[in-house]
């Protein structure tokens, strides 16, 4: 039996033959000892050259710019391959590894390769060649955030595509709540101003020279397009208070996997006629067409006027479509992405008039006409005497997740999904039914002769029977042509719960914006995001913030600005997952305790100048004014409002004057630019920063002999050592870590 071994996979492009520009991708497999995978592994029966002299040296740190946190973590390192016999010379001669993914795993050679753990997933920057070896320079996936955040540009075609003067310019983006932003005049002759190229949650106020305009008489709003339209020529500069939406179903649908999003709360997405020409404007109108907000073109419609649901608004102000239970239903205009080949998901926010006594009602249905509604998918009521069920079915057998317990009166979010290995039914974020196929079997779904996805009814042999129409309210729906990941399920359910008024929608916080940018703008796959880290970040810092972008900006610069404002850090883990966190002092049990047994070397370090001596005062900004206006304001603008408009931001202060008695050179750092909406949140952040940096802190560099690649940035550890303040053990946070798999040592820098 051997100890842990390291294994690396390095794909590289290879110039084949003399065909300049024709590249193939090949893959290098190497380990620190010769190793062959077994026949069932992935890759099967593959030899790993025993040439990995240095499996991985990698360093990750959140220290930067003289500060402990507030920026991206940066990870870099190298891998060394033995090339003393020229084995890899072809790689140096005509191959290229830069930008290719590199994976390093550890395991015991007696294990199956697929059971090995990934300790690094990153990319290569290039190769350094020596006579005896190749040094692959590696770094984390930070480059994935080095792209422009805007992917939508004005084409100059007019309307929402902008005037010709705007051609080629990026469209603005609004994340969360921002005050007094200057929207882009996209279409001058139509008085169309764009606030954001992604949907808005609300437009709270529109100002002309600082004077408030009225909704309806002064302007109209299109939340879906992120625009306002003035109804009269403005007197001067137009500014807006608005909330850009984040973590909507768009974050799940952006991955190019198809799907559809029906947003009833966005009236501007609905039409009263078919083909769609007249937009809905008020409650009481019958809805003939609803635009799919996913961008996938999977709209829903109802061509028969008498069968159209009515747009209504409940007592809490939430919009819904009212289905009469007689003949109302909607049907998808296209079958695309609902082929079942990868599964299906239907998530609906719905309130039936009666959850208990109705029979054979389908809320969502997709059937195969050849076999009637016994073959297909639906979320329904009282199917087979069940109160609620979700089914993926074939001709002779339903694969059904169901419950016989009727749901309580009121609105519920129901999710039924299948990955073809089973069917899961959830209500209000709780699983209420499940069906699982036998081991390794898949649900045998026949895709022949489909009927388009329907809302409010299910066809039986192409005919909808009386009594099977839904009677109740639809607040929103999202469909996917696959099963959701857990994090995606959370996004969908949270969104629909708020759409139906079951739970209030939380204000947009920093974690929401980071996740939105990661999923939608950086186009990271769900598998590249550490959802647990983001959820913890969301709990750590739930305060409402807002950030507006109206010029070219990078993803990384945007994330850095947001994280600096909340005293956090972000970056990719060694295993390639995007993480984000608030930098805090230890408040939880340590994940490891190290004593003289593990400590090979220890050194007390000088603290960064910004906190040495400690801070006696911290200032944190809030209510950022995105358009400073000192003049050309309407006469009606109050003195208080003028004062707000003249200043960039408000400031919350936390200070400890007594500290100056002990530390006569105590420091007063510059104002922290933050994007909090509320003073209390900024004050809390200022006090939090004082609690960290207004105290006397210590920083150590420690070389440890411990199991490699188990520690990471942000981990809390306890150091016990017979010197300094460590004699009885003290907790620290890891802020830098450097590991070398050659000798299995970890060098960490800790702060506490």
């Amino acid at each position, binding site marked *: 039996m*051997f*100890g842990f071994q390291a294994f690396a996979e390095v794909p590289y492009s290879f110039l084949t033959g003399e065909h300049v520009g024709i590249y193939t991708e090949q893959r290098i497999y190497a380990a620190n*000892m*010769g*190793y*062959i995978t077994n*026949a069932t592994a992935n*890759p*099967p*029966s*593959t*030899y790993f*050259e*025993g040439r990995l002299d240095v499996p991985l040296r990698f360093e990750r740190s959140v220290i930067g710019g003289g500060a402990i946190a507030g920026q991206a973590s940066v990870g870099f390192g190298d891998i060394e391959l033995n090339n003393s016999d020229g084995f890899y010379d072809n790689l140096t001669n005509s191959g290229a590894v830069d930008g290719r993914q590199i994976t390093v795993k550890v395991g015991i050679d007696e294990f199956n390769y697929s059971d090995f753990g990934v300790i690094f997933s990153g990319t290569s920057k290039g190769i350094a060649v020596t006579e005896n070896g190749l040094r692959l320079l590696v770094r984390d996936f930070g480059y994935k955030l080095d792209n422009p955040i805007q992917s939508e540009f004005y084409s100059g075609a007019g309307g929402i595509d902008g005037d010709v003067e705007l051609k080629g310019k990026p469209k603005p983006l609004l994340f969360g709540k921002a005050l007094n932003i200057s929207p882009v005049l996209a279409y001058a002759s139509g008085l169309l101003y764009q606030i954001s190229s992604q949907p808005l949650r609300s437009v709270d106020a529109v100002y002309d020279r600082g004077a408030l305009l009225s909704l309806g008489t002064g302007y109209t709003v299109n939340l879906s397009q992120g625009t306002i339209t003035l109804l009269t020529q403005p007197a001067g500069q137009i500014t807006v208070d608005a909330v850009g939406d984040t973590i909507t179903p768009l974050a799940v649908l952006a991955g190019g996997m198809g799907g559809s999003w029906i947003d009833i709360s966005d009236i501007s997405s609905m039409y009263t006629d078919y083909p769609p020409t007249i937009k809905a404007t008020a409650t009481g109108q019958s809805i003939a067409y609803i635009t799919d907000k996913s961008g996938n073109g999977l709209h829903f419609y109802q061509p028969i006027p008498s069968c159209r649901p009515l747009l209504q608004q409940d007592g809490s102000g939430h919009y819904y479509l009212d289905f009469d239970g007689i003949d109302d239903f909607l049907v998808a205009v296209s079958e695309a992405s609902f082929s079942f080949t990868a599964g299906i998901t239907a998530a609906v926010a719905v309130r039936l008039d009666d959850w208990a006594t109705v029979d054979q009602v389908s809320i969502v249905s997709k059937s195969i006409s050849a076999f009637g509604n016994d073959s297909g998918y639906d979320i329904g009521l009282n199917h087979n005497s069940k109160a609620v069920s979700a089914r993926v079915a074939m001709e002779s057998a339903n694969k059904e997740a169901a419950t016989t317990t009727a749901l309580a009166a009121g609105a519920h979010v129901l999710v039924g999904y299948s990955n073809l290995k089973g069917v899961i039914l959830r209500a209000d974020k709780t699983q209420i039914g499940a069906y699982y196929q036998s081991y390794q079997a898949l649900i045998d779904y026949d895709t022949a002769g489909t009927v388009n996805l329907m809302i409010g009814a299910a066809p039986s042999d192409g005919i909808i029977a009386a009594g099977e129409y839904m009677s109740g309210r639809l607040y929103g729906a999202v469909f996917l042509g696959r099963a959701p990941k857990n994090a995606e399920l959370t996004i969908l359910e949270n969104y629909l719960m708020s759409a139906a008024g079951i739970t209030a929608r939380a204000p947009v916080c920093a974690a929401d914006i980071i996740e939105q940018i990661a999923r939608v703008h950086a186009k990271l796959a769900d598998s590249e995001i550490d959802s647990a880290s983001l959820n913890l970040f969301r709990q750590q810092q739930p305060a409402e913030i807002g950030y507006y972008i109206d010029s070219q900006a990078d993803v990384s610069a945007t994330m850095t600005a947001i994280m600096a404002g909340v005293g956090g850090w972000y970056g990719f883990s060694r295993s390639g997952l995007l993480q984000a966190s608030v930098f805090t002092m230890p408040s939880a049990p340590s994940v490891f305790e190290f*004593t*003289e*047994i*593990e*400590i*090979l*070397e*220890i050194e007390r370090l000088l603290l960064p100048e910004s906190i040495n001596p400690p801070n006696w005062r911290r200032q944190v900004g809030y209510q950022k004014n995105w358009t400073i206006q000192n003049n050309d304001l309407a006469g009606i603008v109050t003195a208080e409002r003028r004062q707000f408009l003249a200043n960039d931001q408000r400031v919350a202060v936390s200070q400890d004057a007594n500290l100056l008695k002990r530390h006569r050179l105590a420091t007063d750092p510059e104002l922290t630019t933050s994007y909090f909406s509320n003073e209390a949140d900024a004050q809390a952040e200022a006090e939090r920063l004082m609690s960290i940096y207004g105290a006397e802190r210590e920083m150590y560099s420690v070389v440890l*002999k411990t199991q490699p690649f188990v520690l990471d940035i942000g981990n809390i550890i306890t150091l016990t*050592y017979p010197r300094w303040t460590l004699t009885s053990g003290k907790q620290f946070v890891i802020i830098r870590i450097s590991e070398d798999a050659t*000798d*299995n*040592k970890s060098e960490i820098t800790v702060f506490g």
Partner: protein
Amino acid sequence: MTASTVKMAWVNHVDMQGVTLTASSEIATLPVSNLLTPHVAKKWRSQEEGAKGGDHQIDIDFGISGYDDFETGDPVTDIGVDVVALIGVNMTRNARIRLEASRDPSFASLEYYYDFADANVDPRFKIAVVQLPSVVIARYWRIYVTDSIFTLEAGRLVMARCFQPAVNFTYGYQIGYVDLSRVARSRGGQQHVDEGNSYRQAQIQFDFLTELEAFEGVLELDRVAGLHDDILVILEPYAANIGQKTIWGLVSANSPIIEPNFGIYNKSYSVEERL
């Protein structure tokens, strides 16, 4: 009947230009040509026995019945073999092996036939060695292996002619394991071990080589293999556990031949096992 003194071989005929190996079966990513690579860990792997329908078999065609010495240009017409070894095998103690040698590709007439016999493999050492009673000259060879395992693996094939001195190496030879594990000591004095692979190392000293053995034997070994080509050392040809007494590896240190007395030559070697 061969002598009981050490055997050393440094010209592995399967490494010649033009040699082709064919196996009864192989995994595409682990072909039988892996038996020609220097790293024992890089193996040929057969398909499962049931899939290929019989015992495992390797056919060797030396391509020519002779070759030109690459330095002198002299024709060497006889490719003599008196030892066949498979290194890095996964055979069990139940493995049996058979050899056939012929100048006819159909093996209609045989130069040599070694019927199925116990391969005498100790799984700790992973070496199967067949020592032929005399040198056999043939272009075509066939190795059969039967075992209770489903797939057969081997890392290196050795087919060579051995040098065997009349007088064995001197008493006091050394053999042991070199452990690549690393140990670090912490501030508290505790030792931390990174467990690594181990390989065998043997040191032998010849004190009674004849002039012929010195100049045409060990000095030739130094010329051809030096510190860069693998050699086979069978320390005790009649050992009950032949794998335990056989090393395939590189010479890590040697000495020049010394003539301390008239007609008597000394020479020492240190050999490290290939993994």
